[in-house]
């Protein structure tokens, strides 16, 4: 009986939300083919505690790799160990996150195994011997249905797409040694710099407030940050024009060459809606646009548009959101 392996990404010793999304996607697949879900988690000693939560979301077995040199991402050792686990088991599919880490890891594992990989998928089905996935192409303007016939088939799931669902069970923990010495890896992550601990990531935030050139100056991003703070569960994004000008870090850029996001709510402030930007946010559930030019393309995709001076509208909206939140 074939099983599904899900790579459970952690940071700072904790599971990331996309780890639960990967296990959820794996659970659905395993139930379709009548197999088990094995979750793979690696990190510094103590990471085994993640097993309980992985069990809650449907992992039958949790493969735990603990090593002092795995506190930070160790691409060569992790790739070798995931590949060794797959080779030693009977896996129909391996599910990775499409994240900075997962996008680095998955192709390494695929090449070691000599199998097919499709990343950034929004749906996974089983059809006979093939895994059939949906994958946006041409900056999201076209959707491809792709058949993967290798065994196993490797898949990277798009963040915020496979909603974590509980399927509680007590997972069996299997300890595994790294397949290559983590201390001998050639590629070494020397340092990780994270923003403030409470800052939500663009890929995981339910609400994103984004700013564009209409803000006129870097310091005016405070309006965007204040609105994000009023929502409480929001991250701040930016257009390419703004990051190219150095108003914001490139890591905040949403668009064709930046982050692809699909939050519950996307608020575009002073953004005209260039194709390059729309490519990164058009799958958001609800889009709000605030812009002075009523002909701006952003209004073609906005569920709710307000035409006018953002310097008046945004503070008013911030106050109104705060009030609505206070009322509960």
């Amino acid at each position, binding site marked *: 009986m074939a099983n599904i392996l899900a790579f459970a990404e952690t940071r700072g010793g904790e599971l990331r939300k996309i780890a639960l999304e990967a296990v959820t996607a794996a659970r659905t697949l395993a139930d379709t083919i009548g197999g088990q879900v094995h979750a793979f988690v690696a990190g510094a000693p103590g990471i085994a505690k993640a097993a309980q939560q992985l069990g809650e979301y449907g992992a039958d077995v949790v493969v735990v790799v603990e090593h002092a040199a795995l506190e930070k991402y160790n691409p*060569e050792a992790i790739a070798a160990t995931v590949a060794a686990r797959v080779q030693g088991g009977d896996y129909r599919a391996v599910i990775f996150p499409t*994240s900075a880490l997962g*996008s680095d890891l998955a192709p*390494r594992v*695929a090449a070691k195994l000599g*199998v097919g990989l499709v990343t950034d998928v929004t749906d996974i089905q089983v059809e006979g011997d093939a895994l059939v996935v949906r994958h946006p192409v041409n900056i999201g303007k076209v959707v491809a249905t792709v058949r993967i016939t290798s065994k196993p088939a490797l898949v990277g799931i798009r963040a915020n797409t496979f909603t974590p669902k509980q399927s509680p069970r007590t997972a069996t923990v299997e300890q595994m040694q790294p397949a290559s010495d983590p201390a001998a890896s050639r*590629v070494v992550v020397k340092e990780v710099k994270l923003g403030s601990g409470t800052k939500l990531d663009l890929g995981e935030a339910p609400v994103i407030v984004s700013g564009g050139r209409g803000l006129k100056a870097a310091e005016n991003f405070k309006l965007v940050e204040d609105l994000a703070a009023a929502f409480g569960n929001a991250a701040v994004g930016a257009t390419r024009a703004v990051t190219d000008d150095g108003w914001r870090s490139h890591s905040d850029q949403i668009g064709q060459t930046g982050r692809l996001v699909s939050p519950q709510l996307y608020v575009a402030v002073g953004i005209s809606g260039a194709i390059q930007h729309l490519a990164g946010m058009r799958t958001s559930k609800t889009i709000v646009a605030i812009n002075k030019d009523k002909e701006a393309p952003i209004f073609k995709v906005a569920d709710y548009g*307000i035409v*006018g*001076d953002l310097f008046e509208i945004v503070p008013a909206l911030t106050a109104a959101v705060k009030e609505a939140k206070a009322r509960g």
Partner: protein
Amino acid sequence: MKIAVCVKRVPDMDVRFKIAANGASVDEAGLKFDMNDFDSWAVEAALQIKDKDAATEVVVISLGPDAVQETIRKALAMGADRGVELKTDHIPFDGFAIARALASELQGGGYDLILFGKQSADSSNGVVGAMVGELLGLPVVTAISKLDISGSTGTAKREIEGGQEFVEFPLPAVLTIDQGLNTARYPALKGIMAAKKKPLEVKPAQLGDQTVTVSRMELPPERAAGRIIGEGAAAVPELVRLLQTEAKVL
């Protein structure tokens, strides 16, 4: 230093795509093509190393039909030294097949650096660079937005969710390039003239078996037409009401 840069020819995305009659590809009629953005930054990264060390050789490789020669010539016009076309009827979707063909060309080439864009605008799979590195047994660093090479050691910055990662690696290595590393130069007229005389070798692509194939392409459902609910700060109460009662996101 010897540097290879692998580039892809992709359609200009600023259009409304049509699905081809076979239902599994995009209708190419009327599309304009150019070098993939991320790949142009990879070419620029190589040329900036060459700017400092004139002895550096930059080889540009592209897999696809003969039309990719135009993309290779653009890189040559920017300043690369020679090109290689790995010829195939069409560019497959299977990243591993592409990686195998590129690795067989790169194997034994004596490259100190092999550069890729982090992903292509059309396939958007982002797997080929790291796969080539694995196939060649070389260190791989993906999605870098800052690069320093000092002797036989490199350091790179990677953007991760909510922060940055600083990575050290030995050369030779395979790197994939993210936004923010540089701005690609435009080919100058002198470069365009010189590019016509630079060598461009054509070889068959060794793709091998493919296990990843596109069976259907379709246009995503259109978003409902946009709606302007009002003007100025006076429209804010209505927006909040809609966010609470209709969209249920507040």
